[in-house]
């Protein structure tokens, strides 16, 4: 936490990139002020900070995506102005940005997306060569140990699920052997196994002398990966810590107050009444029917890999789909919502997994983003009562600590985590009977995660049911009273958290899969 | 530049006629405000008409406020309404739809504003001075020429559109001539668009491909005629098919006099002269010197041969070769000679 000496063990290495007094402001918002940092070869620097601390902003400046910064950047000792991504890339700085959507060009094939940089390069081949492109795409994927068949490489990249899109963007960033690789929350859309494989790749890249900046809200990953931790708070460097990390200090620097890394959930609650049930429901054609009871008074965590069927369950309850077979019920009555409106009216809310596409209304204020599902409630005879709206938004902003210049701030100007908090807060403010949260912790900081967790616990305590869908074991253990593991559309495990140990869960979660698919382990 | 300078263009190369008497009242004081409410000022014909009117107005100390509805009849109604509201000394209405303008014109007459109309059929012309170039006589003139050239029972084509008052008036004459001379109408097509000349080429082209044996085509609007001529040339039928049009302009003369042009005759007034004539009608009426309440500007049938014989290459030369076009004896006074003549 105290500033570490600038010369660690491999002190003879000159920094690859150094920042001196870098500041960025968006309009009247001073988002980064006077940042000075150095990044050395063969070192993984973790960048930590609460949502809105300025991590993504720093990365945008460093990767040429935002040229409007002040201060100076030195690359290999030379002072440069990073005006464009091309320029940054030419200098060996390669970045994976937080928004996966910013990395994928729909309409172009997966292979073309993997080799997108080639389109920009002046000298190389003017004519397209399909075979060469496939070869290039395959070799790009190979750095991540991935082998996608040609059928996938030739399909429209828009059809990739978000996790694969994330892998694609990563693979692309590693092409052309950068000197400094910047990863902004690369694992937020990956499953544990994929993340693990990514870490393997990163370690071997570190060994080859690459400098890596790694942004994540998952402390486990940082503990496993980073050589040092830089903490940002409110746009300034709060501390730089070398291994071994003193987590409580880091957390304090991050949040400005004390907090524990290990979160003791205290007692695990046992649910009482069944609020919602799935009976004999088939999630995929051909998969075995499942039965599941979601009870009031407990937080149910559903753990599963991508494609396990978690979102299918969410969509059934949210009124987005109807079951292939089987029935749903809510309370004692059978429940068959035909559209999201029905679900909301029945007290079932769904926090969707893709906040950009399914959650936020870009260009709208935070306030209006929060109140949009509750227009009927906040209006009389159709006329919106502004004050009612505003007070609802204030409650959400305050309980979840959304960092914004006010309820009128545009949602686009919020950091990723704060956007997520807005969407979660919006839905929890509905006082639901059943709340379903699909990957709610994507990109939210530890404090917000705790906050969301305790909000879930409290709505459960008030007699509602809450279900969290995630592919992250830690997250599930942190919030869930009861854990269900879903594999390929069927339930592999269903038990209370205090009766389980992690190994059993991970075994159920990954084990059967690892045996059923021949996956090449990296290294 | 404004409309004024283009008026010079139309009347320029002829020496400006000089008045042999001073302007009478009300023209001998401040400029007389007159509103000219036009259905359209776009295209060569209307452009020249407007230029002639503007030049004549200037000579008569008239300050013209010109509104141009660009073929939007609703706008013309609004324009006329606003013109009435601005209480000018007189209003000229140039073309338009009867049902649209009649009530407003009645209103203007009731408000004691003198009204002169040009080529506008009214159901109640009380108190209105009407002028026209007589679509019927124009069509008749050129169709007589057609019948003379190809004879009764000839295979003919017709390119025009419905829904436009002058074209509808010409269509009536066409129908009569077809019946009287047992003409065999092998095709009938055409449309008026924002780019009439270009857009008629494919239509006539297709019709000609189907009926290459047609002997004559009547295309009673020069924009359509131009398109028709191009289609004939495109099909290499210029030696077999004769085209008959209506109206004349510099651009039209160029087309008619081009080598091997199939456009053999057109019936026309000189739009600039007519525009000027309408202004003179108004001026005489305001000065209390007009006898009739309606004035017709006669059309002249002009053949390709005539243009060739007189080496005419533009409207200015045509006025010299065919002085009848100048209308310099129609509605004139010693204080008000025709400017474009």
């Amino acid at each position, binding site marked *: 936490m105290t500033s570490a000496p600038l010369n660690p063990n491999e002190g003879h290495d000159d920094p690859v990139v150094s920042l001196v007094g870098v500041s960025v402001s968006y309009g009247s918002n001073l988002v980064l002020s006077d940042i000075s940092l150095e990044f050395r070869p063969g070192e993984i620097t973790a960048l930590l900070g609460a949502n809105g601390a300025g991590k993504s902003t720093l990365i945008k400046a460093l990767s040429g995506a935002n040229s409007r910064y002040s201060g100076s950047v030195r690359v290999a000792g030379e002072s440069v102005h990073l005006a464009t991504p091309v320029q940054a890339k030419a200098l060996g700085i390669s970045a994976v940005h937080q928004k996966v959507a910013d990395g994928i060009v729909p309409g172009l094939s997966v292979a073309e997306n993997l080799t997108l940089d080639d389109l920009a390069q002046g000298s190389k081949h003017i004519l397209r060569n399909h075979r060469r492109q496939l070869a290039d795409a395959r070799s790009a994927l190979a750095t991540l140990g991935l082998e996608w068949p040609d059928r996938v490489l030739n399909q429209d990249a828009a059809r990739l699920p978000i996790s694969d899109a994330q892998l694609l963007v990563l693979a692309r960033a590693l092409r052309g052997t950068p000197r400094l690789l910047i990863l902004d929350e690369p694992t937020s859309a990956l499953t544990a196994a994929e993340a693990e494989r990514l870490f393997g790749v990163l370690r071997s890249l570190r060994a080859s002398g690459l400098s890596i900046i790694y942004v994540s809200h998952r402390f486990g990953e940082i503990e496993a990966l980073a050589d040092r931790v830089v903490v940002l708070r409110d746009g300034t460097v709060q501390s730089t810590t070398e291994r071994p990390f003193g987590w409580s200090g880091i957390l304090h620097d991050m949040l400005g107050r004390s907090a524990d890394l290990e979160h003791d959930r205290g007692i695990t609650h046992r649910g009482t009444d069944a609020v919602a049930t799935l009976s004999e429901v088939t999630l995929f054609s051909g998969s075995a029917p499942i039965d599941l009871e979601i009870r009031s008074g407990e937080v149910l965590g559903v753990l599963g890999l991508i494609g396990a069927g978690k979102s299918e369950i969410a969509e059934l309850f949210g009124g987005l789909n109807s079951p292939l077979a089987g029935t749903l019920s809510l309370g004692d009555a059978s429940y068959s919502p035909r559209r999201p409106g029905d679900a909301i009216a029945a007290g079932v809310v769904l926090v969707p997994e893709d906040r950009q*596409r399914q959650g936020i209304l870009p260009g709208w204020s935070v306030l209006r983003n929060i109140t949009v599902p509750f*227009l009927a409630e906040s209006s009389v005879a159709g006329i919106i009562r502004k004050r009612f709206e505003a007070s609802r938004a204030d409650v959400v902003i305050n309980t979840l600590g959304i960092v914004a210049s006010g309820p009128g701030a545009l949602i686009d100007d919020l950091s990723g985590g704060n956007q997520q908090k807005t969407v979660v807060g919006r839905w929890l403010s509905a006082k639901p009977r059943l709340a379903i949260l699909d990957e709610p912790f994507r990109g939210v900081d530890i404090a917000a995660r705790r906050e969301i967790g305790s909000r879930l616990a409290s709505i459960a305590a008030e007699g509602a049911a809450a279900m969290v869908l995630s592919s992250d074991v830690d997250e599930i253990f942190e919030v869930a009273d009861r854990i269900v593991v879903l594999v390929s559309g069927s339930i592999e495990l269903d038990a209370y958290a205090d009766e389980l140990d992690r190994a059993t869960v991970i075994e159920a979660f990954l084990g059967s899969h690892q045996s059923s698919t021949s996956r090449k382990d990296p290294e | 530049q404004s409309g004024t300078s283009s008026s010079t263009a139309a009347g320029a190369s002829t020496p400006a006629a000089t008045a042999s008497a001073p302007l009478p009242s009300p023209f001998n004081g401040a400029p007389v405000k007159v509103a000219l409410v036009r259905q359209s000022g776009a295209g060569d014909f209307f452009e020249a008409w407007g230029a002639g009117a503007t030049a004549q107005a200037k000579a008569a100390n008239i300050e013209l406020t010109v509104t141009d509805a660009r073929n939007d009849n609703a706008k013309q109604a609004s*324009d006329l309404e606003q013109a009435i509201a601005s209480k000018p000394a007189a209003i000229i209405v140039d073309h338009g739809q009867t049902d649209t303008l009649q009530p407003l014109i009645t209103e203007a007459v009731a408000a004691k504003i003198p009204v002169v109309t040009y080529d506008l059929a009214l159901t109640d012309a009380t108190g209105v001075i009407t002028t026209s170039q007589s679509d019927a006589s124009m069509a008749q003139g050129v169709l007589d020429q057609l019948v003379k050239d190809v004879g009764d029972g000839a295979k003919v084509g017709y390119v025009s559109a419905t829904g436009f008052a002058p074209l509808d008036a010409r269509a009536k004459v066409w129908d009569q001539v077809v019946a009287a001379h047992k003409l065999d109408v092998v095709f009938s097509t055409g449309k008026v668009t924002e780019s009439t000349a270009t857009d008629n080429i494919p239509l006539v082209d297709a019709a000609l491909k189907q009926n290459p044996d047609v002997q004559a085509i009547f295309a009673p609007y020069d924009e359509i005629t131009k398109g028709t001529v191009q289609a004939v040339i495109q099909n290499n039928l210029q030696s077999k098919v004769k085209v008959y049009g209506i109206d004349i302009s510099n651009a039209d003369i160029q087309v008619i006099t081009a080598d091997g042009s199939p456009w053999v005759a057109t019936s026309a007034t000189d739009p600039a002269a007519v525009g000027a004539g309408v202004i003179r009608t108004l001026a005489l009426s305001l000065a209390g010197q007009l006898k009739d309440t309606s004035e017709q500007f006669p059309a002249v049938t002009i053949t390709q041969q005539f243009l060739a014989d007189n080496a005419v290459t533009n409207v200015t030369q045509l006025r010299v070769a065919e002085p009848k076009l100048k209308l310099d004896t129609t509605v004139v006074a010693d204080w008000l000679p025709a400017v474009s003549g």
Partner: protein
Amino acid sequence: MTSATPTRVRKSSAGEQFAAFVVKWGFVGVTIGLVAFFAISEPSFRTVDNLFGMLKFIAPTAIAGLGVMLAMTVGGIDLSVGASAGFAVSIAAWTMVVANQVGGVAVTVVLVCGLLIGALNAFLIVVARIPDLLATLTTMFVIVGLKLIIVDGKSISSQMTLANGQTAQGKFTADFLWLDRGSIGPVPVPVILFFVITVLLWFLLERTRWGRALFAVGTNSEAARLAGIRVQWYRTFAYMGCGLLASVAGLLLAARIGQGDVTAGNSLLLDAVAVALVGVSVLGIGRPNAWGTALGAVLIAVMVTGFTMLGLPYYFQDFGKGVVLLIALLFSFTFSRRRTVVTAGSTTSN
């Protein structure tokens, strides 16, 4: 919870405040400036008569533009407004002149037709999933063709000869013509309609939850759907509303022209789209809105009238329209730091 401290806020500089002011009021300023200029140089411009005359003249364009604006709220656009208005003119004339009905019947028939055209657009877009630009372009061609087929390509006027050789007995009735010629107090009916529709749409869009929902659909239809908004209904509503407004514009045109002019409505489309688009960018609002659209229409009226009074030929109006549009847009987009967020018209199916 984390510290809910908002990010440090610099005071916005005077320059930025000025820019924001210009963005918000620049267009209004241009309009006022032009009005002042014409009022000073042309005495006849500054009469009340002229004011109402201008507003009356632009009312159909403005109302059709408000329709396009409505389609734009759900992220779409409607290229069939001109055709719908023209259809309305012919149908109104047909109903009164050929079918010999009174004005009230004609109005009803026309409004129903407008709703049907809107429903056709909605069907193509919502059910058949054809992108709005394409769907409404198609509707445009179909409606124009259909109209001309119905009336045999002819303008319908009283006493015209029908296909069966008889003379049409009906005529435009006085109650129908009142739509154009009537006035309440000193204010002509079209101006009242223009104003009332603007206010209603403003109220709908800015004050009611339905308006909010329309915008939500236009901004992110998937998020709107998940928020329980019946996206397809709102889309349908917007297009039917647009069809209705286009046919109201057509009624005004019909009453003004007094006959079933086949060319009516042709010149409406570009102006209607232009005013709706200008509406998005003026007043610094950055999304479709009623007052901006109305203001855009008024500016066109001012220019057309003013330029005519100055004695400029018609084509100066085009040029002027272009230049003023340009200035307005520069104010709104180039000097603005705000992002406008509406996408109008796409070839992407929803």
